[in-house]
């Protein structure tokens, strides 16, 4: 019973909250028109940010502004991480990060990935946590929300996509900040630490000394989950009792993972005035998500193969899991966090049963099941364009999406985005599987070792940030390669779709007729799901077969 209640509670709450939040985000991000109460906000924003924040931008200007601010984010954080020994709020006197690790970390948090090759409580000062990483957790998520807002405006038919600086300010202060505050308050009430004092020292009952790392965890965790960041305050992320103390913090955290990615779909539907289409997209995502959760829960309820033949009571696989979250909490979270590109964990994915481990990987390979804040929907657009192209031809018309014709230019851009993701995963895996760069850093033998490499590159390319954490990934080759992949995997899938939308918005709308292939029907949902699954399968079936599936089959 409890096995079903946990995912049901989490998913139902998320769906129920996503609808009103989508409505709110539409209001916050894309005010219906001048003369509303929101006007004063705009005036203040322009006053603070200067004239550049005033005018709406064409897709190229929008992307340039986005890149300019993101470059600043990256540079600032790199500097903070390499000089934290001289900065304040460092009660434990942490030293600077090694340059390749600092590069990786700055890239990781700038790209909303939060892949962590460091361990928070070991390496970072409170200043680095709050001013570098937590700041990026806000603004990188806000970049995603800004991008999807711009995309929605373009698909609504406007060639001017809005102003990036205003969008980012809105996303940060009107969307993320209020939500993070609510979540942080709840977390504090549920017993999560929130302090600037250094580690506590305890004398255990057996007389040993235990140094207890702590910090401003509650504030950090709230935005970490809401912004699909996922970078933990502590090394083992949300398995750590300070980062996830109770059953209820776990439920709330899991809801926070799903909330904004779900709400974004509704915001998109409202901005484009196509709620039915948004509903179909939501349905496709939800169906995939529910299948994944069900499979993961079922597979993970099997005992681990490691205990075969040992006098152990039959139970689900508990290696790497915490007891206080309940039985299916780990599987539900594992799927949620990879479907949404959050990347926080409440159980160690490396220790999941082999086939369960395939599901988080699949989530990252597809990267569209709700996906990262903002970018999940943007990724899905690539599949939508591909599905529309094939299906449109099959009904005998030049394919069109939301009344705009999909032609050579759009397909070229879509393919660039479609190609980049598997290129990073397959290419990276190929290089590291065949060289000591990868093989010498593995924590497990055989197929599972390969899975560790696949997982790491999938996580970087999908801007996820979770890991098969046994991998000894704090090496220069890992830091540099995944750092670059995270940055490319962030910006190519944002810029290419914005270019597509810019190109579509410049075209004349074709009126919808009975011969038009509709994108707000169940049939389109089926086609889209088929496109996602087939393309996903064709790209990653060999990896799945050689990694998790081969490992599962080796258990006899």
């Amino acid at each position, binding site marked *: 019973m409890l096995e079903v209640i946990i995912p049901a509670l989490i998913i139902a709450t998320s769906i129920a909250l996503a609808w009103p939040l989508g409505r709110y985000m539409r209001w916050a991000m894309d005010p219906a028109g001048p003369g509303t109460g929101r006007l004063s906000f705009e005036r203040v924003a322009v006053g603070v940010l200067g004239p550049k924040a005033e005018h709406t931008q064409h897709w190229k200007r929008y992307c340039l502004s986005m890149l300019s601010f993101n470059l600043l984010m990256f540079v600032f954080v790199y500097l903070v991480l390499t000089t934290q020994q001289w900065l304040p709020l460092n009660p434990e006197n942490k030293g600077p990060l090694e340059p390749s690790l600092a590069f990786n970390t700055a890239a990781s948090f700038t790209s909303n990935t939060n892949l962590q090759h460091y361990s928070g409580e070991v390496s970072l000062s409170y200043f680095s946590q709050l001013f570098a990483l937590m700041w990026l957790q806000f603004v990188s998520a806000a970049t995603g929300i800004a991008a999807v807002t711009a995309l929605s405006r373009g698909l609504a038919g406007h060639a001017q996509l809005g102003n990036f600086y205003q969008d980012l300010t809105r996303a940060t202060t009107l969307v993320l900040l209020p939500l993070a505050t609510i979540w942080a308050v709840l977390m504090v009430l549920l017993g999560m630490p929130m302090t600037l004092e250094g580690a506590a020292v305890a004398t255990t009952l057996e007389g040993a000394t235990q140094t207890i790392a702590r910090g401003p965890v509650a504030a950090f965790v709230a935005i970490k989950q809401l912004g699909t960041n996922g970078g933990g305050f502590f090394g083992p992320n949300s398995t750590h009792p300070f980062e996830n103390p109770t059953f209820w913090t776990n439920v709330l955290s899991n809801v926070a993972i799903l909330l904004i990615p779900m709400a974004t779909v509704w915001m998109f539907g409202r901005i484009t005035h196509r709620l039915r289409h948004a509903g179909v997209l939501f349905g496709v995502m939800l169906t995939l998500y529910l299948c994944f959760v069900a499979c993961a829960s079922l597979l993970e309820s099997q005992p681990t193969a490691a205990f075969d033949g040992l006098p152990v009571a039959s139970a689900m696989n508990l290696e790497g899991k915490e007891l206080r979250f309940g039985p299916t909490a780990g599987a539900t979270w594992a799927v949620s966090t990879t479907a949404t590109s959050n990347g926080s964990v409440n159980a160690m994915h490396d220790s999941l049963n082999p086939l369960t481990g395939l599901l988080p990987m699949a989530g990252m390979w597809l990267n569209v099941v709700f996906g990262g804040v903002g970018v999940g929907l943007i990724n899905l657009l690539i599949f939508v364009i591909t599905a529309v192209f094939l299906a449109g031809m099959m009904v*005998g018309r030049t394919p069109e999406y939301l009344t705009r014709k999909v032609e050579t230019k759009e397909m070229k851009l879509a393919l660039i985005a479609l190609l980049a993701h598997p290129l990073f995963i397959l290419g990276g895996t190929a290089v590291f599987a065949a060289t000591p760069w990868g093989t010498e850093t593995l924590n497990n033998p055989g197929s599972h070792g390969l899975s560790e490499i696949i997982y790491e590159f999938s996580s970087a390319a999908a801007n996820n940030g979770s890991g098969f954490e046994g991998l000894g990934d704090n090496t220069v080759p890992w830091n540099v390669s995944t750092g670059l992949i995270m940055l490319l995997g962030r910006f190519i899938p944002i810029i290419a779709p914005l270019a597509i939308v810019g190109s579509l918005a410049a075209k004349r709308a*074709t009126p919808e007729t009975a011969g038009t292939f509709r994108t707000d029907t169940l049939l389109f949902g089926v*086609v889209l799901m088929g496109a996602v699954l*087939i393309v996903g399968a*064709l790209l990653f079936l060999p990896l799945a077969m050689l990694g998790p599936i081969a490992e599962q089959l080796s258990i006899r």
Partner: protein
Amino acid sequence: MQLDVSTSASAAGKPFRKERSLFTARMLVPAMGQAVRMFDPWSMARNPVMFIAELGAALTTLVTVSAIATGSDGSGYFLAISVWLWLTVWFANFAEAVAEARGRAQAASLRKARQDVTAHRVVDQATLQVEDVPASQLTNGNLVRVSAGETIPADGEVIEGVASVDESAITGESAPVIRESGGDRSAVTGGTRVLSDHLVIRVTAKPGESFLDRMIAMIEGAERQKTPNEVALTIVLAGFTLIFLMVCTTLYPIARYFDVTIDVPTLVALLVCLIPTTIGALLAAIGIAGMARLSQANVMAMSGRAVEAAGDVDVLLLDKTGTITLGNRQATEFRPAPGVEERQLADAAQLASLADETPEGRSIVVLAKEQFNIRGRKLEEQQAEFVNFTARTRMSGVNLGEQQIRKGAADVVRRFVEEQRGEFPNQVVHDVDTIARAGGTPLVVAENARVLGTIYLKDIVKGGIKERFIELRRMGIKTVMITGDNPKTAAAIAAEAGVDDFLAEATPEAKLELIRQYQREGHLVAMTGDGTNDAPALAQADVAVAMNTGTQAAKEAGNMVDLDSNPTKLIDVVSVGKQMLMTRGALTTFSVANDVAKYFAIIPAIFMVALPQLEVLNIMHLATPHSAILSAVIFNAVVIPCLIPVAIRGVRYRAVGADALLRRNLLIYGLGGLIIPFVGIKLIDLVLVGVGLA
């Protein structure tokens, strides 16, 4: 513009006209040779998918040769892979060659018409003095004289004379047609034959650019340029190819992780199986066959782009007369004015129409005879003087001494009567109005100052046309009727015929403006036309089908010419356009869906030794790793020739909604594409085992 609706209606569902057998040996044999010549890498590079396949085949051959030279194990397997890879490429070339050969057979008959003829060039227009020159020396603007029995040397416009012309060489229609100077029947086509009389023609095309030349080029596919959608699809296929290139090249180092070294032929085999060779091989054939289907329907498209656009058309402008209604209106009723006997009216109407040779006039005579048995009279005896219809008076009739009988539109007759201080009765005004409202044409008959009554001329809507419009509506196409009638009449006929909208009192300007307005709203507009005054609208429309009987100006302005001059042919054109896109989409889906099975055949085969547990994934239970890989390659190759008929005939289009079409195609080509290769590969494997090759 007479037409037979029933044959045209049946043409929509079924292939047009006579269905030739798809292939004949005469086509296939040269196509096989042609397919070999097409191995030329320069020409292959236009098609990225097959180019990669060819490179792979070449690479595999090199490896095979070196394996045979060194006598290493497995060279037989390598050889088999090489042979089948080359066959894959050859099948692709063959598909294109066959499609072209079918066009060429059609073109050959046209070419016969283009034998070099001697032209009589007019040197002096006044005396019609001629000199004989080869037709190839004629240039734009030359005048030529063509007499009975001679072949018209070039495309042109009749500037003098009337003649019957045999155009069967291009239309296939044996009945001769009339060509005369001025008006809408002035265009003649080079290669057709004058049967009677003689014509003086102004040449309008340079040799080599004539209608016939363009037609041959289009059919043969010689000047085939990729259409926009074809370009987009080629890009997508190239993208897929790149993706699989990536998958396969990375598999090599990943296999090294398990200490497996994948040999090159196997890797290439996997690659060629995965890249969308099926659609890549058939893409060109689909385009060529689409054009050929159009020409079988006796429509010549001037570009592939226009055919593709036809699939997107969502507004259809149709002329009322000849398309929606039978060309002529018929008298169906006499409505006398108050105090007038119906017979009296019929008698006067008949008198006024005796000399009227128009179908309407004749129908009045017929009606008078049927209803009152009024017979024709010898009018000469009564000193009758006929008044013909002119554009100025807009009345016709007869003068019998003092007696002036007139028939015409209500407003002119009213003026005629009132000029003679007569009165126009209210009852007649009412009748005129009701008839017009019902879609008929009222003709008022007057004798001197007295109005006798009204003749009801009825427009007869063609049988079956309503069903066709319903079909069009299901296809998502809006029909607009164009007519010179007044709005009331137009509305009534529009309602009866079931069109969605109409343009009444249409002028060329109004037509042009209507098209522009639809285009501004984002619609794609198709229309048919024949007259010179249709030319601007034809030029503006996205798909413009000019009637072959029409003027040269109309034919120049349109992007298609209908040799049968059948305006409802537009509907067939739309179907062909849709079919072309559907066939591409369906075969692409099929091609991509195939890959899943191929993975299940090849991946376990490659890794069986290092990871024996993967045997479970060999769900087809293929005999050995080599037979598994070979079966997949053979399936991938053989499926190409198997699908050539689908590519050439096209996926069937039915006028159902977009969703129903998609569901059907997804089921057949998507789900089918997923399942069929599992069966096919297993069967091929069984055969391989059976013949002892595995």
